[in-house]
């Protein structure tokens, strides 16, 4: 009996411990006005991907992250802080980006993040800076021509944890089984080793993968609209306003189209002319 009480007390105390850890959330950093702080330090800290071709990819030669989103973040920083403004980059993944934003480690997320109603409950978004659409990557000659072909028992679709594309599959092909891998390279490897029939995510990311794996092609076109937005903390209306204004300026000056062309100009399956702004 004594042992039993001891066990119960251990469980109760551990619950109390974790409650204390979460409950005493002081909201210091995330609640400060980002614009004021950025102007003081002359820096905006961006959370970007480092494992996604064309959007944000670590260059192993010099350990710098490079891609469309990194160039865009730099351009936006200069619009907001002036030509001497510094953009700092912190590498994030789909599962760490929101906690890092809420903790104030980063000021904004620019990491292939689609604006969705669920996410809007947790964070705020700028208007869209890139219009992607979800698509499928399959082996050349695969019988799967579009997402409806996957809506059957025994079909397996591969995706990545933390992306909203897996939730879309549940909508478009409810009978298919979904496997969520931890990153795109592992999902691609799982596709090659036959763990699933198709890999699904946004077309821009899939295009990057088909470039390096010529035996695999995009199929069926985009079946959803995935507008990427810059995610920021709630209660930052000034920062949101500045971001949207900076985005408009970057678009109007033609800088947006130059960056777009630099990264997507030579990618098969991407029509840069359609995406220009």
């Amino acid at each position, binding site marked *: 009996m004594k042992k039993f009480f001891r066990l119960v007390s251990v469980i109760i105390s551990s619950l109390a411990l974790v409650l204390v850890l979460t409950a005493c959330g002081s909201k210091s950093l995330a609640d400060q006005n980002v614009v004021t702080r950025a102007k003081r330090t002359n820096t905006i800290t961006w959370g970007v991907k480092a494992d996604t071709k064309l959007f944000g990819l670590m260059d192993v030669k010099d350990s710098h992250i490079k891609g469309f989103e990194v160039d865009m973040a730099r351009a936006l920083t200069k619009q907001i802080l002036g030509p001497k403004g510094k953009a700092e980059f912190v590498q994030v993944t789909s599962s760490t980006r929101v906690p890092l934003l809420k903790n104030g480690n980063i000021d904004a997320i620019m990491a292939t993040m689609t604006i969705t109603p669920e996410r809007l409950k947790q964070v705020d978004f700028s208007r869209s800076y890139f219009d992607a659409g979800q698509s499928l990557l399959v082996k050349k000659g695969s019988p799967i021509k579009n997402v409806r072909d996957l809506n059957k028992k025994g079909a397996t679709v591969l995706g990545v944890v933390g992306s909203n594309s897996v939730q879309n599959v549940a909508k478009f092909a409810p009978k298919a089984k979904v*496997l969520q891998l931890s990153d795109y390279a592992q999902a691609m490897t799982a596709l090659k080793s036959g763990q699933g029939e198709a890999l699904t995510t946004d077309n821009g990311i899939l295009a990057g993968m088909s470039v390096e794996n010529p035996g695999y092609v995009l199929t069926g076109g985009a079946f959803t609209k995935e507008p990427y937005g810059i995610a920021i903390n709630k209660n930052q209306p000034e920062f949101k306003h500045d971001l949207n204004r900076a985005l408009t300026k970057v678009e109007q000056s033609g800088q947006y189209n130059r960056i777009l062309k630099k990264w997507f100009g030579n990618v098969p399956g991407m029509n840069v002319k359609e995406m220009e702004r």
Partner: protein
Amino acid sequence: MIAIFHNYGSLLLQGFGQTLLCSVIALIFSLVIGSMFAIFETTPIKFLRVIARIYIEVFRNIPLLVITMFFYVVIPMFVTKINGFTAGTIGLTIYTSAFIAETVRSGINSVDPGQMEGARANGLSWWQSMQHIVLPQAFRYVIPPLGNQFINLVKNSSVLAFVAGFDLMYQGNVIASDSLNTMSTYICIGILYLIITLPLSYWMRYLEKKLA
């Protein structure tokens, strides 16, 4: 936190079940395989000793994730299709068995060699002396470190998350990204792990006291 349990109860339950299932399977097989290699290492036969040595050193010095990925990625390329749960469980079994072998071996070695000699002198065969005299004493020494290994095994089953094995950690990642409520989700996951591991560690302590 209560909201997480409420909204994602079935996912959490499924993950809990998979983690438990994988742990039990891996526990049984790794204990058998591990003890076998430990005995191999202490036999007078040199060939068996070398085999056991290589097995233990290779698998306990490579991260579990690497072993698991090998089964998940390489085996389907050459042999047969294998799902994440199976790959993860095989990887976990092999990895843990190397640690168990090392633990049991050190237990056998800490038994006074005089015991073995005495038993042999009294006419028992090598295997009989091992079974009746040496192993019972050895296991008494190694109960606490073995307990550590079993708890490690349960926690290490989280490697299944990397190969889509639908375990607790996998469901945790899925729920965290769906609800965007990272801390609460992982606290729920932590409580569920404690439900498995805490009784295990108290039971081990009880056994240790009883055997001492």
